[in-house]
């Protein structure tokens, strides 16, 4: 079950890290209602992460042991073992970057969950079924913001262009399967992400059209997240996130 565990960790890490990033907005959002909305999405993502971590812990556990838990997986692995998409760990930047990151990600995640519901793994299918409802809302919310900012003021349009420039190189990774995924695709429990690129692009194109924005043409793409090769940002995020678990090992909280 090693590739399965890796796959589950990839899903768990990505949702946790993105949830963590979104949660950094809490108390600092540009509009009170949107502060609540982004915190809500953070909560949804952390909730999804917990389901994947719990399942991963169950699968990774040696018979009779109890040392692997959702928290040991989230708090006691270093960056070299984190398998989140690079997109998820990118900084919040301004509101344009945050909502575009969410839209690019949720649009992908929706397609993943859609296929996962049909996969051979019953538990993953159940998680996907629950999570896809939340994701539907995340796409709607972030997509509306993409249009609002793209078609808002000159300033907001400029910031959206900047956000696209910053984030686009991190999208290719979503559709590039690594070894554990390839094995899972063969065995039927992993989503064939390469096949999602066209439908994903269509959805992005549609929103961008409405927003007056252009999808960048064939640009260089950065990968590595799923193999534990991250950007320099993740190390700082984990140092902060894991501090208490590391500083007071073996404690109950």
């Amino acid at each position, binding site marked *: 079950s090693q590739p399965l565990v890796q796959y589950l960790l990839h899903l768990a890490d990505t949702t946790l890290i993105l949830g963590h990033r979104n*949660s950094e907005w809490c*108390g*600092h*959002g540009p509009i*009170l209602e949107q502060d609540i909305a982004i915190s809500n999405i953070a909560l949804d993502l952390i909730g999804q992460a917990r389901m994947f971590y719990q399942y991963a812990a169950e699968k990774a556990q040696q018979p009779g042991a109890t040392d692997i838990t959702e928290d040991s997986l989230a708090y006691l692995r270093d960056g070299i073992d984190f398998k989140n998409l690079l997109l998820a760990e990118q900084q919040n930047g301004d*509101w344009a970057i945050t909502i575009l990151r969410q839209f690019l990600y949720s649009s992908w995640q929706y397609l993943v969950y859609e296929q996962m519901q049909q996969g051979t793994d019953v538990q993953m299918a159940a998680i996907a079924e629950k999570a896809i409802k939340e994701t539907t809302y995340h796409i709607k919310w972030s997509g509306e913001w993409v249009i*609002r900012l793209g078609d808002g003021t000159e300033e*907001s349009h400029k910031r959206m262009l900047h956000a696209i420039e910053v984030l686009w190189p991190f999208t290719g990774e979503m559709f590039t399967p690594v070894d554990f995924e390839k094995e899972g695709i063969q065995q039927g429990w992993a989503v064939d992400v390469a096949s999602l690129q066209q439908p994903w692009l269509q959805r992005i194109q549609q929103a961008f059209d409405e927003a007056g924005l252009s999808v960048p043409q064939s640009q260089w793409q950065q990968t590595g997240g799923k193999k534990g090769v991250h950007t320099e940002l993740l190390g700082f995020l984990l140092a902060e996130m894991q501090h208490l678990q590391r500083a007071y090992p073996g404690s109950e909280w």
Partner: protein
Amino acid sequence: MADVQNENIFQDKIDQEIKIEPKDWMPDAYRQTLIRQISQHAHSEIIGMLPEGNWITRAPSLKRKAILLAKVQDEAGHGLYLYSAAETLGISRDQMYQQLHSGKAKYSSIFNYPTLTWADIGAVGWLVDGAAIMNQVPLCRNSYGPYARAMVRVCKEESFHQRQGFELLLILSQGTPEQRRMAQESINRWWWPSVMMFGPNDDASPHTAQSMKWKIKRFTNDELRQKFVDVCAEQVKILGFTLPDPDLKWNEERQHYDFGAIDWTEFNNVIRGNGPCNKQRLDARKNAWDNGAWVREAATAYAEKRKKRQAAVEAA
């Protein structure tokens, strides 16, 4: 109708426990007192997000992270209800923000203290939310309808938060020596500021009488404070910690706990802006507001464009 007559009808309703509603006549001083109190309360919810928000990224387990995030989000929601209640009195949310950012409007001084350890998340929940509830529960029956209804929703969630805070400390109290030390140290720091949350002593609180007559207030500061001390002095025993007050002692005669003198110099200092985090808290809110200006402008511009386009379509 003459004002005197209005005033009589108004006070009559209040005496009969009939809610005052936005369109009803009310004395200007009643309106102003409510605006001041509700907006101050709303601001406290919003500023109150910051000290707890400070630990969201460092919560020590996924469960705690989710609980804390949900709690801080609830506070944003409370802010929202309360701003809406205040708006029914004829002040806009932007006006209220401006008063907050300029320093004209106040918020609860308790949020000018820093959260330094994870245990503070527990202490804030137990003591600060605990004190807030003492203040707020009577407000569910206050005479102004929209405010009373908002408070019903707020109180329901607050008492849930307080239990979570207590439970967090309970876990620490059963934990390692480091955890127990962390929790006791946190209680030591938060106790007196929480006791001060009830405001000045009654003899130094001149507006109380009028507010009680209007049923905006139903108990005096000292009555509520005594109740708070009585409850906490018992609860702290369950935690196996102590409150940092050598004078705290059960008084058989009064059937209340006696407690030590409050350091009003500190209280006044913090109110005057000289608390550990006054500047930091207000700066955080002002930054959020300033950095969000372009977002709000874009949203407005887009909404207007849309409206125009729709009008053009309908006209065609």
